[in-house]
């Protein structure tokens, strides 16, 4: 059974504990930032920032909303980056957890190709060409601890566990959310081990909240993969 996240954005308060906990556990340095007229910072994910809470002010049905979206790698069930790389020494899937892991050998990959293969625009490159992104805190998970971002989340926005448990929780939380947000939905739940629950249209939260179709065509290899993929778990799509 692979592991999954459920990220219930309707509960997120953007305290950004997850953003710091991620850096803390991974010993990642801070970036030099400026205030760009928003609380959101840094401006983007980077080689040193695996997790970033997106913050958007949106007027929906005449009412102001402040939408929060803790953006991170989705740990795709069939990961385009992994398929594109075709190099398990650089990008591999941990069988037990389903985590998609980038190693130092990503340096030998064509970074642009890998980044473009990602439907969610997640991987980022170091000056030397090495790629990095969320590693599911796999060292913690292997030792029975939740990922740092999940452990630190105060409100239950971040959840982690066996995939079937997370799917069940997603169904339950979606039903709760629908009472306040009739258009609430789960994003790409069948394809991902990181399932987002959103109250409104995904695109309002973050540019790449939902898979962008355009990027699926980037590599021939991937296109092939998409075609031969079986229709998985229709039931979960109905949640």
């Amino acid at each position, binding site marked *: 059974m692979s592991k999954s996240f459920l990220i219930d954005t309707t*509960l997120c308060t953007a*305290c950004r504990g997850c953003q710091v906990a991620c850096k803390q556990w991974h010993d990642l340095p801070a970036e030099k930032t400026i*205030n760009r007229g928003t609380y959101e910072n840094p401006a983007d994910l980077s080689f040193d920032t695996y997790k970033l809470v997106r913050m958007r002010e949106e007027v929906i049905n005449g009412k102001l909303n402040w939408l929060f979206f803790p953006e991170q790698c989705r740990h795709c069930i069939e990961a385009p980056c992994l398929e594109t790389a075709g190099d398990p020494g650089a990008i591999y899937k941990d069988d037990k957890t389903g985590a998609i892991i980038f190693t130092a050998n990503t340096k030998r990959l064509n970074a642009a190709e890998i980044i473009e293969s990602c439907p969610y625009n997640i991987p980022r490159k170091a000056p030397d060409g090495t790629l990095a992104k969320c590693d599911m805190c796999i060292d913690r998970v292997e030792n029975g601890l939740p990922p740092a971002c999940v452990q630190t989340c*105060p409100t239950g926005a971040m959840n982690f566990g066996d995939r079937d448990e997370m799917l069940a929780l997603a169904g339950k939380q979606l039903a709760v959310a629908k009472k306040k947000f009739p258009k609430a939905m789960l994003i790409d739940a069948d394809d991902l081990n990181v399932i987002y629950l959103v109250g409104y249209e995904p695109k309002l939260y973050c540019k790449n909240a939902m898979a962008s179709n355009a990027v699926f065509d980037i590599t021939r290899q991937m296109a092939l993969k998409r075609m031969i993929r079986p229709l998985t778990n229709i039931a979960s799509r109905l949640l």
Partner: protein
Amino acid sequence: MTNHWIDLKNSDCILIMGSNAASNHPISFKYVQMAQEKGAKLINVDPRFTRTSSKADFYTALRSGTDIAFLGGMIKYLLDKKLYNKEYVENYTNAPFIVGKAFKFSDGLFSGYEAKNRKYDKSKWAFDMDSKGVPKMDRSLKNSRCVLNLLKKHFSRYNTKLVSSITGTPEADLVEVYKTYAATGARGKAGTIMYAMGWTQHTVGVQNIRTMAMIQLLLGNMGVAGGGVNALRGESNVQGSTDQCLLWHIWPGYLKTPRASNVSLSAYNKKWTPKSNDPLSANWWQNYPKYSVSLLKSFFGEKATKANDFGYDWMPKVDDGTDYSWLTLFDEMYKGTVKGLFAWGMNPACSGANSNKTRKAMENLDWMVNVNLFDNETGSFWKGPGMNPSTIKTEVFMLPACVSVEKEGSITNSGRWMQWRYMGPKPLGNSLSDGDIIMELGLKLKEIYKEGGAFPEPILNLKWDYMTDGLYDPHKVAKEINGYYLEGPKKGKLVESFSKLKADGSTSSANWLYCNSYTEKGNMSARRSKVDAPNNIGLYPEFAWCWPVNRRILYNRASVDLKGQPWDKKDWVVRFAGNVKNGKYVSKKWIGDVPDGGWYPLENPDGTKRKDAKHPFIMRKHGYAQIFGPGRADGPFPEHYEPLECPVEKNLMNKQRINPVAPVYGTDADAYATCDPKFPFVGTTYRVSEHWQTGLMTRTQPWLLELQPQVFVEMSEELAKLRGFKNGERVMVSSARGSLECTAIVTKRFKPFKIAGNTVHQVGVPWHYGWRWPETGAEESANLLTPSTGDPNTRIPETKAFMVNVTKK
């Protein structure tokens, strides 16, 4: 907090007003959202749409400084529609008390106003007393002079139209808030308030909170699970430091600092020990002398004897009727009367109102001792912006304290939980724990005074045996705070509870409120049991320790009816479970939380009154909660007054524009500007999730600076358009006292207000920055803008509502 963090989950309606809990107390939202999931409503009222608003079921805005108008409208609504909890109000509050004829209110002034001194003669607000010296009451609430009817009359002016024109809140929104919150007046329902500096930092701060406390009483929300008046305190141990009374007016355990007129210990005790003639009033403060004498025994140990008044004369006295608070202290320093300053774990160059005045005042010091984790704007004030070191005489000693994880001791959270912390790593470099620094300095002082000096007795006689193997030992102090038996069979043993303390010198207790925290059973604050109490409402009675005597919800005997049975059968706090015989209680037993005193309930199951019972509000002289509060400096009822600096020429509610007793200061650094076209916008200050207080412990941290790198000013799109600002542009914010450069955040989350037909803009600046960090030196403190004025009761500065301008850089 009368209640505590976990208890928020038991609420049916949570009002967040005067705080931004989601941002500044993020973990509270674990419990806020738990309540919401169970169907509770979350209401948020704030000048600006915040992280808290983003999660609210209902959000509306008000102009900074108009909370009393907003809440006064709610009181009128509750009374007009009779939505208050009648049984609770009649029996547990002073609503039936008859107020003396001298009490009057007209033109925005209460009777007894002395214009010359800007003071009230509070004797004009006294209750009528019967022949026994007990307040006269009319339980039928018909007497026109009873508190409830005076309250009705007082707030009759607060109609939604008028309130709306003052607050800028749409009338429909006011009604929605009133209606939703009023629903908690139903039996078994609980509403709670989460407030913070958004209410305290005003010239009407205390009355903001009183207005809400009165609403809580009217709705029967005090003492119950999911209710209470909950101040979200801002620092990890600001509750504890307040309990230990690092404040001019109080001694540990909220005892009074002696006035010069309290010429002896017996005069002091007599003055501050309240007397009640009602046999049903517990009047807990009648125990005052036991606590004051036990405290003196802790101060001076064996040197404190009956013969020398337990060392009472050694303690400093303050002059009657004189203020010694923060604003006054820096005013004196500015005038040059202060020579030495200890700024210990504080950064006043950024934290107090009117920073330019504060920083300038420091130039007049001969010396300063500054203890901190980091170099800071206070210790290094002499090289700050606009300073010329070669003209500044002040000697500065800057001492490195260690971080909390590098030492051992206890802190007390906002919910009054005392929790023990342990040492992880040793102090880094040559830093030391504050405890070690204090102990060493104390020893140096004792040494130097052995050779003589002015009045050396208190220094030499101060009990100072809190070291083990030459190091500060927090356990020894914690035990002293709890207190010891000094005589008798238990001599040398720790006292079990403050009920055992004595006024004859046979016990010590450095803080009676903490008596029971460290007993012969061990360190109660270090407990870790995750087992809940039988009522299963999240009290966790054996996790840490809570003052007083581990009572987790204050005033909890008001959570039951006269027969001792809970209003709320599901989320009950305490219940009387004594045996019943022939309709009468015959044995005493309370279950659930530690009750506010273990007396019998006021009535037997058969409805007969008991003579051995006590009213539930045991800390009040008469045993009743005070809807009418004759002890406040600015009136027994709250009244809307505009902030000292405001955008309106006149107060629409009454003829006084500002609080008639608000303090003002008169140095050349104390400019105030009202309705001045140079400063047309309302300004306020606040915190963000990623920084803390003056920012010294967060601006120095790269991870947090990454999230919030620069000071900013938030403003509406309308105001930005008016001024031609682009989002993200650096702009100048200025007030009559100072200015700073900020990054403009142009946001939909601020909206202009319609105030009496005019458009009023408001802006906000977080106060976490200062020139020392980040090292660019370009980010400054928002307190450069704020005025030296404050609440007349507490003198907490008015940093939440003042006037500013915002201009191109």
